[in-house]
């Protein structure tokens, strides 16, 4: 039984299909990755699942068909997106960003919100030191941590991460991926979109390879990590 089920997803920008006929599954507690070169349509898939872009096809979360649901309804039903550009609220503090992330549980009151924030601070101790700092003044790695923490504040069943390694130095990328792998213990399912194929394959259970808007390979992450086709997909075929 899959937590997230995508069937025949097609997204077009002005008549040009960016994603065509993509189907994928994420089971509860699993880490699933979608890898592929720039422009393959990875971000488009996440935007469509989150309801930000109109798409054809079917999106099911749990037992509910959410194909027609609004972005905020999807969040209410338990999916959170960490966007590629992080999209923090730059003029708000770390704590304020987190509190907005927990908007879904606003009815539970302030004490519950503070408890959830403490859990986030435990996961990202760096943010605890910076809770009064404005989000716009933080470094790239800290922004990515805050974006992830803000998404977790919604206590989602499914966390979607869009290129968490983008623009970050290798050491910080390593930190971020360790954190993502560690989230598995909390029970949240993760759909990870990455250009950094090796790191993504190393921490995931199952992988989809996306090229030109279509899934061209799919399988167990460990097996795909050894597949030579991945290199030619990223770097093209050598000229004759």
């Amino acid at each position, binding site marked *: 039984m899959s937590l997230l089920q995508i069937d025949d997803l097609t997204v077009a920008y002005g008549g040009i299909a960016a994603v065509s006929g993509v189907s994928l599954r994420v089971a509860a507690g699993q880490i699933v990755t979608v890898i592929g070169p720039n*422009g393959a349509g990875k971000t488009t898939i996440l935007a469509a699942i989150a309801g930000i872009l109109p798409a054809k096809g079917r999106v099911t979360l749990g037992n509910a068909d959410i194909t027609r649901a609004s972005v905020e309804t999807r969040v209410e039903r338990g999916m959170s997106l960490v966007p590629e550009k992080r999209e923090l609220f730059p003029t708000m503090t770390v704590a304020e960003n987190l509190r907005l992330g927990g908007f879904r549980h606003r009815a539970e009151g302030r004490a519950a919100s503070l408890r959830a924030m403490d859990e986030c601070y435990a996961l990202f101790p760096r943010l605890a030191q910076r809770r009064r700092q404005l989000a716009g003044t933080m470094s790239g790695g800290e922004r990515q941590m805050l974006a992830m923490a803000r998404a977790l504040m919604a206590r989602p069943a499914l966390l979607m991460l869009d*290129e968490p390694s983008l623009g970050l130095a290798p050491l910080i990328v390593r930190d971020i991926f360790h954190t993502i792998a560690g989230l598995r213990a909390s029970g949240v399912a993760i759909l990870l979109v990455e*250009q950094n194929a090796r790191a993504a*394959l*190393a921490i995931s259970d199952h992988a989809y390879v996306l090229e030109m808007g279509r899934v061209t390979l799919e399988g167990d992450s460990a097996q795909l990590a050894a597949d030579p086709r991945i*290199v030619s997909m*990223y*770097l093209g075929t050598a000229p004759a």
Partner: protein
Amino acid sequence: MTRHWWVLALVLCAGLPWIPGLPLFWVTLGNGIGMSAIIAIGLVVLTGIGGMTSFAQASFTGFGAYATAILSTQYGLSPWLGLPVAMAAAAVAALAIGAITLRLSGHYLALCTIAWSVSLFYLFGNLDLVGRNDGISGIPPLSIGGLKLIDVRLSFTLIGAALVVAVVATGNLLNSRWGRAIRALRGGAVAAASCGVNVAQARMLAFVYAAILAGVAGWLFAHLQRAVNPTPFGLNASIQYLLMTVVGGVAHVPGAILGAALVVLVNDRLQDWLPKLLGTSGNFEIIVFGGLLVLVLQVAPQGLWPLLAKSRTPRHHKAQASPLPQRAPRAPGAPILDVVGLRKNFGGLVAVADLSLTLAAGEILGLIGPNGAGKSTSFNLLTGVDQPSAGTFRLAGQDMTGQPAPAMARAGVARSFQHVKLVASMSVIENVAIGAHLRGRATPLAALLRLDRAEEAALFAEAARQLDRVGLLDLADRPATSLALGQQRIVEIARALCVDPAVLLLDEPAAGLRHAEKQALVQLLRHLAADGMAILLVEHDMDFVMNLADRLVVMDFGTRIAEGAPAVVRNDPAVIEAYLGSPA
């Protein structure tokens, strides 16, 4: 419409008011419509086409009106002399105000023009020179020979003639080198700058031209009303003129006339009818007028003119033209571009740390790298969109470091855009002709007087030549945005070729293209390189760039991590790690 529609229009202006039985009141309304339309045409150029919203247009009418009023009452000069003086007064005022204000854009510019409008209104009302709030009265009427133009029917002819001249002149201006620059301002100022257009000058030109038209209307107003005071030059009047253009169709010259007619007539009729319906106890006409306005803009957000007439892009007939002078071709292999240690910081973020590369005539160089590697920033540095924090950039031995985009174009660097930037309201060939901006000399004044036709023919012949070179000459007269994305990208390359560049910089030219289109693009770029063009492209499509480029420069984290032939680069462990990442 025939080419000589204006002769018919002039005859109508002379004849219409003399129709037997026509109430003079209607002729007077017509005069008001005509004067408003002249001002509104200026606003079409400024706001609808140039993209600058002005709430100060009535103030320039005031400059014109007061200038001629002072001249003819205090110095006793002929009212006809007042016309050039009124135009000059409005132009000088616009130059001064524009120099201070036009650096702003969007709603900041609009707010600032409101401030100007309010302060100029009080200035007119408090200056002794212009009679404070009482204004200047006893202004002499215009006269021809001994005939004084006091009869409103004679005024109608005069205003009509002025309107016809304004329409013709505006058409001439918009279909000229500088007119295309103004039309490219809205939305695509970066593209215009990359073709060598001095964007600040083009904005100022639109601002001053609109002010001069307002000055002409002010001159007419002063001598027909025979008295001026600050009221018709205040903020309310400016808002009315803006309303006229918006209702009529803000990007269309005929829309200005339609809008002026509708606003004047509806206002007048409402003032007549509503008191009969609802009594005279309130200003209902303003409420009803507002309601009508909301309704019109709901039904026709682009204004009413586009509903009445489908806008067409003009056909350009092939004319005999002497070819434009060209840059001397370079021998293949001659070094052109030499970049050393280019660096760009955004605050504490280093987007490009240290980029060095060279490019020779006839060479195709691919700049590649994973997302966030600094390719786009590098591209902006090389094209003058951004200024580098450190490093040097030499073009054929000449130091171009820190030069803005138009200077780059002048020196021979032309570019295309990742997100195609063509002017939607212009035909393919007009868009391409923007590229030849720097290869023309004609001034805006020459364009107004249609003295630029030989040069225009030469510019369009060059645009046609470049369209032929890229294989799209058949589509020359189509609206630019009616083309498929792939074709639009090729049009951008034709526009860049019109700059007569030594170096062609292409930002993801293959993005969104179909397979056959990519093949055609490879052929085209190889042909250009064979002609001695140096080509640098940023590209994500690896198959495309590996096949096309002679040499690749690979970036990661703002630095060059590899350089060499495609076959070598793709087996470089550092490149593979940059693209595929290292295991966590």
